[in-house]
Structure formats: C-alpha cells, structure tokens
C-alpha cells in the first residue's frame, strides 16, 4: 500500500519537474543563463548538465542536513552548499572539458545565482527525505536541461543552419562527427543568435506549452460523466 503511494509520489514529482511545474517554462527561473548560452545545442547541453548536477547534489545535501540547520540560518547554509557544488562542477569542467569551460565562461559560476536551485532547496529539499529530494533535483534539473536543449537546437538551426556544432568540446573528439549541416546560410541569421532571438524562441515554446495544456484540459472536461461512474464503481 505505502509502496504504491510512494510510487505515485515519484510520478507526481516527475510530472511536475518535466511539465506541470517546469522550472524554465512555468516557474520561469534561471532565465539569464537559459537565454544567454543557448546559442548552440552543445552549450545548452553543457550548462544543462552542469545545472542538473548541482541541483541533484544540493538537493540531497540540503535534505541530509535539514535537521541540523536552524530555521534562521537556513538560507546562508543553502547558499554555501550550492556555491560549493558549483565550484566543484566548475573545477571538474575546467579540468576535463576545457573547451566547453571557456565557451560557457562566466555562466558556470553564475549557476550559483540560478533561482531554480535555491528555490528547490527551500521549497522541497528542506522538507523531504534525501531520496525524494534527489529525485526532485533530477527531474527538475532534467526539465531545465530539456528546455535549454530545445531552445539551443531551435536557435542553432535558425541561426547557423547546423546541429551539434562544437559537440567535441563537451563529449570528446568522437563527437565531431555528430555535427549536422541542415541549411546552408551565407550569413548566420543574427536575430536567432542574439539574445532577442532567445526571448522570442522562449516565448514561442511557452505559448506551445500553454496550447497543449489547454487542449488537454478541454479533453478532460469533456468526459466527467465517465469519470464519476468509475469512482462509484470502485467505492463499492
């Protein structure tokens, strides 16, 4: 019985993180790196993975120490935890993915200021056991990373006509073959590459999400009778 309940809880968490309460599309948190680095898929994926790693790490740590942290100083403690993970990720990226490290530049340290991370620490991790907090970090981070990658691919196709340009910076030399040239431009379409293009593309993605949500709601509203019957049957 409790097993089923726990499973449902994880399912709700996953749906929240990836769709219903997506940090980038619904909560609109962490927009600064989101809009700034999504010029290419590679950059988006790099920052998405780094954020995911920090979010999982900080969520688990915050959850583990939550009983020892008095309420008054919880925010500074969360900031210390998050900053530690970010610096850790920064050092590791500096050592192992140097090209990407220089490409992402200031945005890796800026993960510290990504409100999505401290938001999850405060809203969820500080009130729940570590495995749930870790899972929450995983799905929230994935939701954020997916939006980054989606935005990165849209902008890369429209702006440069390629996909996975510079993937070898993130994944090693073998990934140089991943680069696909989709459209041949004489000049890159600057609007998509520059920040305004990021805002416009982001707005489109949110609009599409809202349309899908509304259609789902309408469909659900069309069959309330059937639902009510089923409830009566199971209650007997």
């Amino acid at each position, binding site marked *: 019985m409790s097993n089923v309940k726990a499973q449902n809880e994880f399912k709700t968490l996953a749906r929240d993180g990836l769709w219903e309460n997506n940090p980038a599309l619904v909560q609109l948190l962490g927009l600064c790196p989101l809009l*700034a680095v999504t010029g290419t898929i590679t950059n988006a994926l790099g920052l998405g993975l780094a954020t995911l790693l920090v979010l999982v790490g900080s969520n688990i740590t915050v959850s583990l120490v939550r009983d020892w942290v008095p309420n*008054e100083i919880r925010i500074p403690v969360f900031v210390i935890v998050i900053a*530690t993970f970010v610096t850790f990720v920064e050092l590791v990226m500096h*050592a192992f993915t140097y090209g990407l490290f220089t*490409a992402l*530049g200031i945005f890796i340290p800026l993960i510290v200021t990504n409100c999505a991370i401290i938001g999850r620490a405060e809203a969820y991790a500080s009130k729940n056991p570590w495995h749930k907090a870790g899972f929450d970090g995983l799905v929230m981070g994935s939701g954020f990373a997916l939006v980054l990658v989606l935005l990165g691919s849209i902008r890369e196709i429209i702006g440069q006509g390629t996909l996975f340009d510079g993937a070898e910076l993130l994944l090693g030399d073998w990934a140089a073959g991943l680069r696909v040239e989709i459209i041949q431009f004489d000049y890159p379409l600057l609007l998509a590459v520059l920040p305004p293009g990021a805002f416009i593309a982001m707005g489109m993605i949110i609009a599409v999400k809202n349309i899908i949500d509304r259609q789902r709601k309408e469909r659900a509203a069309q069959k309330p009778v059937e639902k009510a019957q089923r409830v009566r049957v199971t209650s007997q």
Partner: protein
Amino acid sequence: MIVPAMRRNGLILAAFALVATGLLMFTQYLTADRIAAQQRNELMRTLSELIPSESYDNDLYGDCTEVTEPKVLGSKLAQPVYRARMNGQPVAVAVRTTAPDGYSGDIHLLVAIALNGSVLGVRVLEHRETPGLGDKIDVRRSNWILSFTNERVRGADDSRWQVRRDGGAFDQFSGATITPRAVINAIQRTVVWATEHQQSLFSAPRQCAGSAMVDEQEEQANE
C-alpha cells in the same frame, strides 16, 4: 536569551563553511595538475596560431624566459616570454601580458611581436568580461582581436592606439568601451616594451616553471 542562539547559529554556519572549504580545497588539489596541463595545451595551440610554424625551427614553448614587469605586463608575477628562432637567429617573441583595467577583472593576453616591431597577432587567453558586450575581444565571439595583426606602434603616445571614440584607429563595441580600451592599451604597452628590450629578451636564459616540466617529460619520452 538571544545571545546563545546567535552563538549556536554562528558556530553551525562556521562549521558548514569549514567543511565546504575543505572539500573544495581537496577538489582543487585533485584537479590542479589536469587544469595546468589543459592551460598549457591551450597556450601551445594559441602560440602556433600566432607565429606561423614555417617561420621558426626551435621548440617555441620550451624556449621561454620569465620577466617581472608589473607596470608593463600588468601582473606582479613573472610572466613568460616565448622566443621563436630560425637557425638560432631571432624571429619573433610572444609575450603573456595582462590588462589590469578590464571591466571585470584582469584580461590575460598573448601578444606575438615580430623582430621589426609589428604585431603578428593577439589572442585573449582568459577574461571575465560581460557576455554579449565585452566578450567580443574573444576570437570565438568576434574577429575584433584580429584587427591588430600587422599593426605597428610608434611609441607610447601613438594616437592611433586608442578606440575610435577617443580618436584612435580601432573599433570599440557598442555598449562596451572600457574593455577594448584596456586591451588596446595593454597591447601597446607590451609592444613598445618588447621592441625596446628585444636584445635582452632573446639573450635571456631559458627559465620557465611550466616549460621546464615539458622538457623533463620530453626527455623521459626520449629515453
């Protein structure tokens, strides 16, 4: 009443800070060698971009000397100077220099200067300038830095070595003037200094902490 609580909170906070610092120091210790190696590779790649490989025949990265010139090179630490030679004759130098007056912190540059005093090329090695504005000094973002290639400096008060807004010959970026100004000044200082001290730079003994390590590795590989 409030004092014990404050003391307790302070101690807890200090404990977290200590543990976090300890963990990061450990990580830094583990990754330091690897990061140094990556920076070395990057530097070697940049060097070969700036000085055409057919123009010299020595081990450019190994033929390195260190100079400490805080006023010119912008750093209190010893800065490496790499010397390119052909059949033992001087060809060019590449100087690592720093613009200390960037918009956010130091901008580290590598400036290659030919024997006749003209700039062979400049690259930004490291910077923290504003993304989208000041980071156009990076060759990956824009080709602004290439505009210095083959330029010459006529003395420390050469009026061409300024951004256009100040009456010079080089573009500023819209929204960012401090960054290009800092870079232009650093290049100008470095070129004037390197041309004046050409002889002593080429005759200085080999002594660089980083390149000594490479030499050892090469020797071990040869054995």
